[in-house]
C-alpha cells in the first residue's frame, strides 16, 4: 500500500524546501543515502530533527540546507565533535543554525506524543537543569492527583520522517530489527514517512526482535542497498567505524569538507 519508488523520486515527492524532517536511527539504520539525495536535490531551509544528529546531519548542516536543528546529543559517537554542527552554531557557517535542544528522554517522549496524536508528553525530567532556558517546547504540568509538577514536552510531528530498514515486501510492509531506537515513533509521528530498505522481498519472514510497520502507515518505500552506510543494518552490514573516525579530519576543515561533499555526493554520477 506504500508506494514503491526510486530514492530520487521518493525524496523529490516527499521532502520539500522548508520541511521539518526527521531522519532517525539510533547509531543503527541511519538513512544516510536519503540524506545524500537531499543534498543532491538541494532541498533547503530544513528543520532537521534527530536525537543524535550524528554525521548524517553534520553533512546536511555543512551543505547549508538546515535552518534549525531539534536534537538531544550532537557528537560523533565514540570519536568527538561534529565539526560542521559546531561551525554552524558557533560561527554561523555556512549559515546560522537555530537550535531546539532537549534531553534524550524528552526527545523520545516528544516523538511518542507525536505518534500518539497528543499535543504533549509528560515526563520526570529536566529538573534543576538549565535546559528549560534554551527551548520553548518545554513546560510543566501539575499532576491532578498528587499535585506533583512534572515536565511537559511538546509533541514532534515532522512533515516527513525518513528511516532505513532491512526489508520491505511488495506492499510496502517494512521490517526492521536489531536496535530499533525511536524509529516507529518517528515514522508514526510524521505526516509522510519514507523508508529506505536494504532489499524488497516477496515475503517478510518474522524475525526475533523485529518491528513491522504496515505499508498503509507509510508513504513510500525505496530499495537502497547499503543505504545506511557508514551506519549499518544488522544482518546486512557492520558499522564503518573507520569512516566515523575519518570524518573527524574531513569535517574539521571547511574546504576539505566542501571538497569531500563535491567528490562524494554532488558530483555527477556520485552515489554514496
Amino acid at each position: 500500500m506504500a508506494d514503491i519508488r526510486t530514492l530520487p523520486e521518493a525524496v523529490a515527492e516527499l521532502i520539500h524546501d522548508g520541511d521539518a524532517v526527521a531522519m532517525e536511527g539510533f547509531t543503527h539504520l541511519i538513512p544516510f543515502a536519503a540524506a545524500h539525495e537531499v543534498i543532491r536535490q538541494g532541498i533547503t531551509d530544513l528543520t532537521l530533527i534527530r536525537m543524535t544528529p550524528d554525521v548524517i546531519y553534520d553533512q546536511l548542516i555543512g551543505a547549508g540546507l538546515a535552518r534549525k536543528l531539534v536534537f538531544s546529543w550532537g557528537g560523533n559517537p565514540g570519536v568527538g565533535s561534529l565539526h560542521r554542527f559546531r561551525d554552524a552554531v558557533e560561527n554561523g557557517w555556512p549559515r546560522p543554525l537555530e537550535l531546539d535542544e532537549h534531553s534524550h528522554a524528552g526527545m523520545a517522549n516528544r516523538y511518542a506524543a507525536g505518534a500518539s496524536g497528543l499535543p504533549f508528553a509528560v515526563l520526570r525530567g529536566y529538573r534543576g537543569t538549565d535546559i528549560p532556558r534554551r527551548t520553548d517546547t518545554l513546560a510543566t504540568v501539575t499532576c491532578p492527583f498528587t499535585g506533583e509538577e512534572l515536565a511537559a514536552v511538546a509533541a514532534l510531528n515532522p512533515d516527513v520522517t525518513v528511516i532505513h530498514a532491512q526489508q520491505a515486501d511488495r506492499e510496502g510492509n517494512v521490517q526492521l530489527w536489531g536496535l530499533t531506537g525511536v524509529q516507529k515513533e518517528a515514522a508514526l509521528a510524521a505526516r509522510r514517512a519514507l523508508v529506505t530498505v536494504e532489499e524488497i522481498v516477496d515475503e517478510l519472514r518474522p524475525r526475533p526482535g523485529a518491528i513491522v510497520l504496515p505499508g498503509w502507515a507509510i508513504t513510500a518505500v525505496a530499495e537502497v542497498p547499503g543505504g545506511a552506510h557508514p551506519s549499518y543494518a544488522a544482518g546486512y552490514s557492520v558499522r564503518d567505524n573507520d569512516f566515523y573516525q575519518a570524518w573527524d579530519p574531513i569535517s574539521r576543515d571547511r574546504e576539505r569538507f566542501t571538497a569531500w561533499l563535491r567528490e562524494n555526493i554532488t558530483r555527477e554520477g556520485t552515489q554514496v
Partner: protein
Amino acid sequence: MREEPGPVADGRDLGAPGRDGRGPAGERERSGEDGRGVPAACTPDEVMTVNAARALAGARTCFVGIGLPSTAANLARRTCRPDLVLIYESGALGAKPTRLPLSIGDGELAETADAVVSVPEMFNYWLQAGRIDVGFLGAAQLDRFANINTTVVNRGPDRPEGRLPGAGGAPEIAASCGEVLIVLRHSTRNFVDRLDFVTSVGHGAGRGDRERLGLRGRGPVAVITDLGILRPDPESAELLLTDLHAGVTVEQVRAATGWPLKTADQVSVTAPPTPAELAALRALRAA
C-alpha cells in the same frame, strides 16, 4: 556517550578525542606532560578505569554511557562483578559485548542483550521508573556538588559560546538511577568553580537539593579520576577528596581542581590495579 568532551575555551578539545584516551591527546602524552607519578606498569587512565570498575562491585544494574563509563562497566563484568547487567540507552538491556563498543549503538550490544527495547521504553519504563541501580556518567565540566555540564562553555567576552554535544540521556540518568558514578580525567578545565551550564544535576547547591527538586535517586556517590576519588560530604554534599591513587599527592589534586578542594578527615590510597585487573582491561581494549 556523555563522556564526549567537546571544545573548551581555547578551542582545543578537552581531554582525549579518541575513546579512552587512545587518540592523539591520549593518556601516554598526558601522563608525560603532567609528570604524574604512577606505577610504571600502568597509566593513570588505567588506574582510573580499574577504580571505576571496582566502584560497581555492589551494583546489579548499570546504565552505561559510552567511553570511559562503558570501559569501566565492561571491566567490572570481567573482574569484580561478572553478573553486572549493562544497560545502554540505545535499547540494550543486559548487553554482554565481547569487545568495547565504539558507539552506543554497536550491533553487538543488541545481539548479546537479554532484551532490546525501544528508546522511549528505555527512558520511560526502565530509567525513569527508578529500576536501575547505578548510572555511570562522564562530564565535560563538573562542579563541587557534582553537577555536570555537557552543553556549552563560555569562551569569554567577544567570543561565541563553545558548543558541547548536549544533554543526551544524562539529565534523567542523573535524576533517576539509584546512585550515580562519574568518571573523568582531573584538570582545572573539567573541575570548575562554576558551571557555564547545568546539564545534569548532581547535588544542586548542596545536601537536600535533590529532595527539594524531587529527584529520586541518591545522586553522585563517587567521582573517579586519574588522580583519585572524590565523594560527597555526608553533611554538605560537597565533594571531598577521599582517595588518592598511589603516588599522587593532595597538592597535585588541588592543583588540578578549579575550586578550593576539601579533603576528607582521612584520605586513603587506592589499592593499585592487580595484575588480573590490568590484564583484563588490556585484553578488553585489545579485543
